[in-house]
């Protein structure tokens, strides 16, 4: 099958690759660009393990063709923090035991990152509603909710201190 030339900005870096028109974005990220943080849990858009941030929106990359993403600005878990400076969400997930097997975690944190931009000071109910597209089989969510609320509080107090 003939391939398309696809240009993306991934985690701040311009990248180019060739991919078949039918290739899913998650496969292009994982297999052509070696970005293996986002995972595949269902391929039907239910589990959210493949969640990435695309042009300022949370997107399940298992149900988007890479061709549709051509020109997009993408952030994955790899772009949120680095070993020298974890993102507050990454810190809070560690602090509050917001993960166990870790398979849902990249999608979960990437979605939470967008949620806190949509709603910087969410209630528990708003977190639960806003995160309902991401499934976890290990934690029962209680500590994930705690982690996200703690991150929101942390980010807000940092913001206040800066003002």
């Amino acid at each position: 099958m003939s391939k398309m030339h696809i240009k993306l900005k991934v985690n701040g870096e311009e990248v180019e690759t060739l991919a078949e028109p039918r290739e899913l974005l998650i496969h292009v990220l994982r297999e052509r660009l070696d970005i293996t943080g986002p995972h595949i849990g269902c391929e039907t858009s239910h589990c959210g393990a493949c969640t990435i941030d695309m042009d300022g929106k949370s997107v399940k990359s298992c149900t988007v063709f890479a061709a549709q993403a051509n020109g997009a600005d993408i952030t994955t878990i790899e772009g949120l923090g680095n070993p020298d400076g974890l993102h507050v969400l990454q810190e809070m997930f560690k602090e509050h035991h917001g993960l166990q097997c870790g398979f849902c975690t990249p999608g979960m944190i990437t979605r939470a990152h967008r949620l806190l931009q949509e709603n910087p000071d969410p209630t528990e109910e708003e977190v639960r509603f806003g995160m309902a597209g991401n499934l976890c089989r290990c934690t029962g969510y209680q500590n994930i909710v705690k982690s996200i609320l703690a991150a929101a509080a942390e980010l807000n107090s940092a913001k206040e201190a800066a003002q």
Partner: protein
Amino acid sequence: MNEMTPPKEERSEALKGLGCSRKRVEDARFTQGKGNYIDDIKLPGMLFGDFVRSPYPHAYVKSINPDKALEVPGVLAVITAKDLEPLNLHWMPTLAGDKQMVLADGKVLFQGQEVAFVVATDRYAAADGVELVEVEYEELPPLVDPFKAEIEGAPILREDIAEEKEGAHGPRRHPNHIFTWEAGDKDATESVLDGADVVAEEMVYYHRTHPCPLETCGSVASMDKVNGKLTLYGTFQAPHAVRTVASLISGIAEHNIRVISPDIGGGFGNKVGVYPGYVCSIVASIVTGKPVKWIEDRIENLTATAFARDYWMKGKISATKEGKITGLWCHTTADHGAFDACADPTKFPAGFMNICTGSYDIPTAYLAVDGIYTNKAPGGVAYRCSFRVTEAAYFIERMIEVLAIKLDMDAAEFRRINFIKKEQFPYQSALGWEYDSGDYHTAWDKALDAVNYKALREEQAERLEDFKAGKTRKLMGIGLTHFTEIVGAGPVKNCDILGLGMFDSCEIRIHPTGSAIARLGTISQGQGHATTFAQILASEIGISADDITLEEGDTDTAPYGLGTYGSRSTPVAGAATAMAGRKIRAKAQMIAAYLLEVHDGDVEWDIDRFVVKGAPERFKTMKEIAFAAYNQAIPGIEPGLEAVSYYDPPNMTYPFGAYICVMDIDVDTGTTEIRQFYALDDCGTRINPMIIEGQVHGGLTEALAIAMGQEIAYDEMGNVKTGSLMDFFIPTMWETPNYQTDHTTTPSPHHPIGAKGVGESPNVGGVPAFSNAVHDAFRAFGLTQSHMPHDHWRIWQTANKLGLHD
């Protein structure tokens, strides 16, 4: 020796040992997307395999034509049973003493069964090839209902063994019958039931479901033809057992096979089984000389890899008028699907179902289990439970409720008067187990107080009045459960899988500078072993947990063990860890005594050092001892500081717990709201409370799923109705409540640190708690038993049948 010794508390805290909520060392990788799961593995030249699967639950395979598939660019091979037969790999042994087709050998026995394996350069080409393999089937009538398996004219499923009267677990009375397994005293139990004041009888069905870890199963096989070595990466909860099985079925010498379980994205029992995909990836790698990856998709995971439960448990339970239980009888019809691939210890074809007397002092009991073949996927794994313990706990906790109704007693009080008493431990159960320890009354009272049980019952009575008066359409249910688990399989004298004793192991190496590496025969799937086992060790050998690396999952480096499932890691490998630590300490004591120029008996252990008795200013820290082990010639002592322990547990452990669920039910819509869920767990000594609570939250949510909506359902033609996450219920954050956790601590008397295991307790106890809440809400209207899962539709139907919509 001239340094000031810090106070004991400070030194103890610095170790981050037993009992502290140490943050997980795994999380730095996982939160940054740097986990290394099976689908992340990429080897040079790697190919991809995908299955052609049967659309029919029962059919002859007349022909398979790969020609068109082989024309697809990128498709390199199509492997069928005919190709596997010369290698004797077209069938493989199951964990339960049966055998299973790797690829369809003349017929298919369940929808989704593996028929051919297409190998291609990438997953898209493989999928294209799958589409083009032409298979001609001749449909046969399916057997879906296990109660119709032995009626006249029932289709015979396993023609390969139709004439065999003897199976792996004794006589077979019909070609569709697998085994009958019995425990207890049948005659005595029937005579108790015949003469009893009160007898309750129910059919308790624990429906078929699936562990559905977020990561599906997969493998990467790489046969290096130059040096004859096979490396097999995969989602294996028991890597060493996989190596042995792979060697036995492939003929490759075991030392030439290296099995690696990388990070595993949840297991819950699903990854205990040996699947055709693993075998086919190995064969494909041998055939092509390249690494071959197989990753199943979610639909394949739900329809073809191991299911859980599917037990029809007919029960009778008797009591005196005063409410003292006198006898329990159970006959279980176990739907095992097309091949008996249950993951149970060899001598227990129905797992530990004979723990079904639960937390109660029941003097006489009898259990019989009949295993039956049907046209469904094989499996029968312990989905977040120890070998059929969830089924047993659900059965007894439902029977207790039904009998309480019959006696017109409060279900909490009824339990209390029948609990095994603290002074009765170790307790010999009527069905053959020796419960190691327990204090059920203390836990029960603590739980009832915590939720203010009396006030809840008063509120429920008021609600009922309001309901009857037409003031509300919501009923309130209080779901009680007191469960006893049996975990930590197990003693080699009665527990093995495929002849491999169920011990476990730990090997420790102390480095010269006083840090360490420990390797275990288990494998974490999210339980946080790298965090908690280092804590056990820190307390045993006085080296900070932060200075101990923990490794699992590579059979070339880890000592042999039977893996992680059935809550066995802490009871067995955790014990091995403590024992290996004690061996280190014993040698360290000799080294310290030599350095301090005293006799071995003249030094004593003090958190992180040996001190001379009566002279606390004279000591050697573990760091000093470690260095000395490598740089001094000590007479009579070998250099180095290493130890290995293979631990064969003397008994199982018996964690228990008291769970209470308060639920509101809208009778008009069938919707439910969990108002409160209180979970008290007693898992003996607590290693890391943070991780225990996380395990409880997760297990309860899996229990919520199972009790309230999750099932693998088949239609009458044998089609899977719940084969994707569209239909198979997994609760989201929105549906999941917050849980209150609590504990009591009754250490195991035979475990080196008194720990019992906890990962599965919340699933074992959670399911009956949710289900009992539903039943309790309708108790006043005469409901005794209804089948799970209690989804909105089923609850609506229950309310409707009880006349609540009239």
